[in-house]
């Protein structure tokens, strides 16, 4: 069965610190997609990144970077030089293509960036 675990419930950092959000997943599929979403206080879930199971290259987008490791079933998200605007809840998700792209969400990590 598909499952996503985000063990960190809440993280607090001071602005300009680096922070890593952990995501561990379980699936029996050989082909799958992983996603990260950001949910700011306004409530709308905003898509950040998608990664397929065949591409283990790390990705960097500005201050954001993602580390995908199939060997440990992890898809971690790092914010470099955090800013107050990064304060939000971040969700990791796993899609089940064989089930009409059903998403399995983790419970989320709330990031507090203090000035």
């Amino acid at each position: 069965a598909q499952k996503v675990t985000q063990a960190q419930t809440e993280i607090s950092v001071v602005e300009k610190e680096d922070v890593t959000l952990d995501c561990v997943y379980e699936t029996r599929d050989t082909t799958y997609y992983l996603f990260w979403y950001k949910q700011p206080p306004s409530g709308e879930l905003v898509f950040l990144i998608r990664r397929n199971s065949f591409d283990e290259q790390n990705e960097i987008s500005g201050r954001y970077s993602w580390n995908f490791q199939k060997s440990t079933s992890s898809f971690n998200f790092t914010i470099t030089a955090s800013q107050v605007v990064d304060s939000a809840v971040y969700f990791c998700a796993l899609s089940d293509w064989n089930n009409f792209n059903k998403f399995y969400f983790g419970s989320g990590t709330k990031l507090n960036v203090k000035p």
Partner: protein
Amino acid sequence: EAGVAQSPRYKIIEKRQSVAFWCNPISGHATLYWYQQILGQGPKLLIQFQNNGVVDDSQLPKDRFSAERLKGVDSTLKIQPAKLEDSAVYLCASSSYRDRESEQYFGPGTRLTVT
């Protein structure tokens, strides 16, 4: 391109009353999802439509919740009668389902308070 639209944004009702939420997905998106998000938790899938057919409603409390997507476009989610534990944010999302890379796009949500 317009995003996923939802209304109302906020609703306060008393227990045992009924309520309905409306969602209009991104144009051309075949798949529509309704999620329930209780404070501090990740989104929980209630029902998933592929065009106007239901493909997953395994977590929908069918004794009180109902949903329809009659013309394969917009959708309505209804709760009748509401319970205190139904207080949550109800999120609608849509996806093109054209390929495995399809992420879900979320609307702003409807915050329901049952008193």
